[in-house]
């Protein structure tokens, strides 16, 4: 098997790879919150921040776009739906699509993409153990939350999203090879794809749980120590400033 996915962790030594994972999570939360309330100028600032991050992490843009193709198609569909359902001056008179609807749909898609790229930057530059340790560190002061258990779950979800995407591609290829295209009902095609994918994913997660138990998994693991440096604070300050600017613009 060649590359699993551009979303999967890619070993490297970039500034983002070296950034303390606790700072990465805080930055993701800050930029995510700013994205929710940012106007187009603010979204442009946050997009520039994400693009700089992608460049710094040396993620392959073409591969990334290929991996995100289903999401891009879905976002385009949502934007189109909004254009046809939100009332307003028509975009082009013969078509019942409104200009405000299209703008709102495009901004919604833009917001989602900024948040998704933030998540990709986190998952592609952070090892599972580091993410797990950071989540546990951030949750430990919260009363009533089993920090290490939640951290393990978050770490495993991030670790296995690329694997699930890979499985999804394998199932799709196998069904194409068996002539699924001849099935004209898109809902049935979708059902067949999701049913097989769910079965494989659940089976794999069962095997994974057994393998982890077999290797003595315990919540009191000897995780590697996290260490923040002055450079990390500088990156956090930059991201915080960009988020603030995005909200204010």
């Amino acid at each position, binding site marked *: *098997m*060649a*590359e*699993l996915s551009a979303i*999967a*962790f*890619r*070993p490297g030594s970039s500034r983002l790879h070296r950034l303390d994972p606790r700072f990465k999570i805080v930055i993701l939360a800050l930029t995510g919150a700013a994205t929710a309330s940012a106007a187009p100028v603010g979204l442009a600032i946050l997009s520039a921040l994400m693009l700089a991050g992608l460049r710094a992490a040396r993620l392959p843009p073409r591969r990334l776009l290929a991996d995100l193709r289903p999401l891009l198609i879905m976002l385009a569909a949502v934007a189109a739906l909004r254009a046809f359902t939100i009332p307003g001056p028509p975009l082009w008179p013969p078509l019942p699509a409104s200009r405000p609807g299209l703008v709102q749909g495009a901004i919604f898609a833009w917001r989602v993409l900024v948040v998704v790229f933030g998540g990709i930057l986190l998952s592609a530059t952070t*090892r*599972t*153990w580091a993410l797990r340790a950071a989540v546990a560190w951030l949750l430990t002061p919260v009363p009533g939350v089993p920090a290490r258990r939640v951290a393990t779950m978050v770490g*495993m979800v991030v*670790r296995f999203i690329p694997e699930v995407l890979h499985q999804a591609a394998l199932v799709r290829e196998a069904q194409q090879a068996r002539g699924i295209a001849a099935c004209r009902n898109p809902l049935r095609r979708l059902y067949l794809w999701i049913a097989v994918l769910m079965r494989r994913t659940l089976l*794999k997660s069962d*095997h*994974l749980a*057994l*393998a*982890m*138990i*077999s*290797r*003595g*998994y*315990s919540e*009191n*693991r*000897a*995780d*590697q*120590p996290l260490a923040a440096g002055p450079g990390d604070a500088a990156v956090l300050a930059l991201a915080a400033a960009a988020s603030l600017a995005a909200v204010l613009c």
Partner: protein
Amino acid sequence: MPLIDIRHLTHRFADGTLALDDIDLAVEAGAFVLIAGANGSGKTTLLRHLNGLLRPTAGSVHIDGVPVTRDPQRARRRVGLVFQDVDTQIVGETVADDAAFGPENLGLPRPDIEARVTAALEAMDLAAAADMPPHLLSGGQKRRLAIAGVLAMDPAVIAFDEPFSNLDYPGVRSVLRRMIDLRAAGKTLIVTTHDLDKVAAHADRLLVLAHGRLVLDGPPGACMDDIERYGIRQPCSYRFGGRLESWLN
């Protein structure tokens, strides 16, 4: 006292299937034991009882005289299990991360973990791949990584579930060579297989399971004449030459 002592072990799955039926078995330290049987004969179920992944319906499994059900974590430290599907056993983003998973679960100090990881990767000839993502490894390398992950926990027994499945000829030889090295280093090896050709020449004991029952137990050479009645093919070298030959020759 035998290292592994199984007494009247019976396992019935929730759907009523009888997977193991009154198994009695003792394995001495340093032995190389093959467990053969057709699909569904109970080989994998038996292995999963050795480190407490399953609980007996009746009977018991003792490791060093201690019942597995009394202290499953101890059993997992003493018996390392290499799964048939190694992809679900590998949890780290890099080869070294994955090999460290077991020692981290043991809560060892960081220098000890690093020493164990280095030693295990060197033993499996994977030191040069320490920083590689596991999904880029070949099938044989992945299997060796799974063994390294178990070896880093320093178990007395290493149990392999169909270790040669999906491997090409060089992959089989590479894994077999490491198994011989492990045996020479004093480990007790238990290997399940339905294909005796690749490994029978190196084992000193062969157990045959059929429908959950132990039906043959003896030196491999002495069991070969009767083996085909249980759905297991005689090795080619035995069939045509009357003796067992190593794939390493």
